């Protein structure tokens, strides 16, 4: 309780309040413009936040992360185009409702479901904090290594139908991390005697290339689109209370969002599909799903909005990011010498609470903003796509060049931008590269530091948490093999592996 009060005290600073306002309102607008998304915005803003105090910088980035999905629902409902990739499922039921003339109802349900998802996940986090604070110190080098290994395995296996691609890209990410001077023995690795490779690949440069520049190149090289959205007449406030009729779906979907958000490498997509399937199976009108079912819309929005807060758990408690956006935030922590992990929960619980409370406040701010600005936002989402591409390209320059004023960094980012275009067009995932880089680094350091206490392989798992993590790794692999065998015996009639529009987490 003391930590909660102290955390609230930390938020009472004009810089943080301003960061919350800019982050939450900016995040909604960014999320609402199809083709931008939180990943692009966070990648661009990341270097700019390095000069701000850690809590201010993180609050702004969290604001964008937590609010972009609210904004992303708007074009999903009105235009049949998701503002961010994780709003894709919202189009299934949101757009048919708009076609039926129920745009206002669909938007109100999307906002209220997102709000409930966000709030439930933050309450769960605050309630779980004492438990996390008790468990986190039990994680030593071995446990963190195994947790990172589990994260890598999950990110590969979570891409069903694209496991091999995700595997090769995650391995590529691990390789990217190893390029340059090795920090202990100063051995050169894969530098090919090139001085520019000696310092290796900077995570932020790769992130900016893969997420921001690639999006600019993609939008500029594709035909220009001028989306035309339906305007909404009247206030959406009256529609908010309708969510009460579907409280079970909203609560269960939020629960799935919290659980999936906590597991590294899984995230919004899995949470949404589990929630959507649950909602359909338990609905009295399952035939309406995909044709404008309010329950489908609620399941999708509540689940995806419950993820951001939950995704902060592995990041803050163990220093392990579960997806690309939290991987980016990790670099903000490192720049300010705030090392996420067990120590943070032990020594700076007020800082952790301040982040949770910031998330809570931003959900309220976003809902209020949306209630009064939906019709203005419908104009924002009609910005031509190539114009958006130009702005992203100009902003990407700030992100890459301001890091070290290095033209080499910009050239590297540019190459990764082209790679990002190829991966996006092939619908191959970007996230495994980023998680490979981050988790590869964690695994290398933690495996090495755990070695002095490991004489036999069994020593690696002789502590309870290490044993549980190892069992989880075996379970995850075992379940995947079981699924493969089942699919081999009963091949799906019409396999839809396009379900993970894998730029996810991505945008």
């Amino acid at each position, binding site marked *: 309780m003391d930590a909660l009060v102290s955390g609230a005290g930390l938020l009472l600073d004009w810089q943080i309040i301003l960061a919350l306002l800019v982050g939450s309102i900016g995040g909604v607008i960014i999320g609402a413009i199809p083709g931008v998304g939180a990943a692009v915005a966070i990648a661009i803003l990341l*270097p*700019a936040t390095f*000069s701000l105090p850690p809590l201010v910088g993180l609050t702004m980035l969290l604001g964008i992360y937590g609010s972009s999905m609210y904004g992303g629902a708007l074009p999903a409902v009105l235009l049949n185009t998701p503002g961010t990739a994780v709003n894709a499922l919202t189009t299934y039921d949101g757009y048919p409702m708009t076609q039926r003339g129920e745009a206002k109802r669909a938007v109100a349900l999307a906002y209220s479901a997102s709000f409930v998802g966000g709030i439930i996940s933050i309450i769960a986090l605050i309630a779980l904090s004492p438990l996390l604070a008790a468990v986190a110190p039990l994680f030593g080098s071995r446990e963190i290594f195994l947790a990172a290994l589990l994260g890598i395995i999950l990110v590969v296996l979570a891409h069903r*139908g694209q496991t*091999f*691609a995700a*595997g*090769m890209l995650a*391995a*590529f990410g*691990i390789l990217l*991390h*190893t390029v340059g001077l*090795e920090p*202990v*023995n100063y*051995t*050169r*690795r*894969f*530098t*090919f005697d090139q001085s520019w490779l000696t310092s290796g690949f900077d995570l932020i440069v790769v992130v900016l290339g893969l997420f921001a*520049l690639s999006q600019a190149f*993609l939008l*500029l*090289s594709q035909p*220009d689109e001028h989306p035309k959205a339906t305007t909404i007449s009247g206030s959406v406030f009256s529609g908010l209370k309708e969510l009460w009729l579907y409280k079970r779906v909203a609560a269960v979907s939020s629960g799935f969002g919290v659980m999936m958000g906590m597991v590294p490498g899984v995230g919004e997509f899995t949470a949404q599909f589990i929630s959507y399937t649950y909602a359909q199976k338990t609905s009295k009108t399952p035939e309406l799903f995909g044709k404008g079912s309010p329950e489908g819309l609620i399941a999708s929005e509540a689940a995806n909005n419950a993820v951001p807060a939950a995704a902060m758990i592995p990041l803050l408690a163990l220093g392990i990011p579960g997806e690309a956006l939290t991987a980016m935030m990790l670099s903000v922590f490192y720049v300010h010498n705030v090392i996420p992990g067990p120590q943070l929960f032990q020594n700076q619980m007020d800082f952790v609470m301040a982040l949770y409370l910031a998330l809570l406040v931003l959900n309220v701010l976003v809902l209020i903003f949306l209630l009064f600005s939906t019709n203005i936002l419908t104009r924002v989402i009609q910005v*031509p796509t190539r*114009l958006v591409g*130009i*702005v992203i*390209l*100009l*902003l*990407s*320059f*700030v992100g*890459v060049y*301001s*890091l070290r*004023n290095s*033209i080499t960094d*910009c*050239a590297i980012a*540019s*190459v990764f*931008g*082209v790679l990002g*275009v190829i991966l996006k*067009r*092939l619908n191959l995932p970007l996230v495994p590269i980023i998680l490979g880089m981050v988790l*590869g680094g964690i*695994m*290398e350091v933690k495996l090495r530091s755990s*070695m002095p206490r490991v004489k036999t392989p069994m020593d690696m798992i002789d502590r309870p948490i290490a044993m549980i993590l190892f069992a989880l790794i075996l379970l995850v692999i075992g379940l995947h093999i079981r699924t*493969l065998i089942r699919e*081999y015996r009963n*091949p799906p009639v019409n*396999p839809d592996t*396009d379900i993970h529009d894998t730029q996810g987490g991505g945008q």
Partner: protein
Amino acid sequence: MIRIKGLQELFKRYRRPGDIVFAWVFVVLSVFLLTQLDTQAPWNPKAKTFSQPAFWPTVAVISMTAFSAFHLLSSFLSTRLDGRWKEVWAWVRSVEYSGWFMAYVYLVPLLGYLPMTMAFAVLLGLRAGYRSVKVLGTLIILSVVIVLVFKGFLQVKIPGAAVYEYLPTAMRSFFLTYL
């Protein structure tokens, strides 16, 4: 025959045009890196396996090779969609904008952040097919806002341009600091 059909079912997946080209490129890259392991990440006979500087590069390159080989195999076994080379051409087209970006990067330290941002916004607007004064004007306003917010307000590290040195003393320091 049944066994081969079963294998095909197991590896079959959804793919997009051009998938196999990327799969081949990745396999070739992985095999090339594999052949370079000895020289680029040499194994130190005195160090323990898990403390080897070469341990993680080796794990990464071997995994890349194995996964990319399976990815290529699955690409072979999946239904081919038309438009492979058209897709590859779309990838090549994006390189043009990479060139625009690098030109912008190269010119900013010489000719100034504000002038180059305005110039590139307009040039890219024209390249993207916009001809209306309204859109081009919007782009100029946006570029001024970007420069003022990031360099003027947030003070991100973008060096003053070489050309600003020729400005009168009174204006020089303002331009070097804010624009």
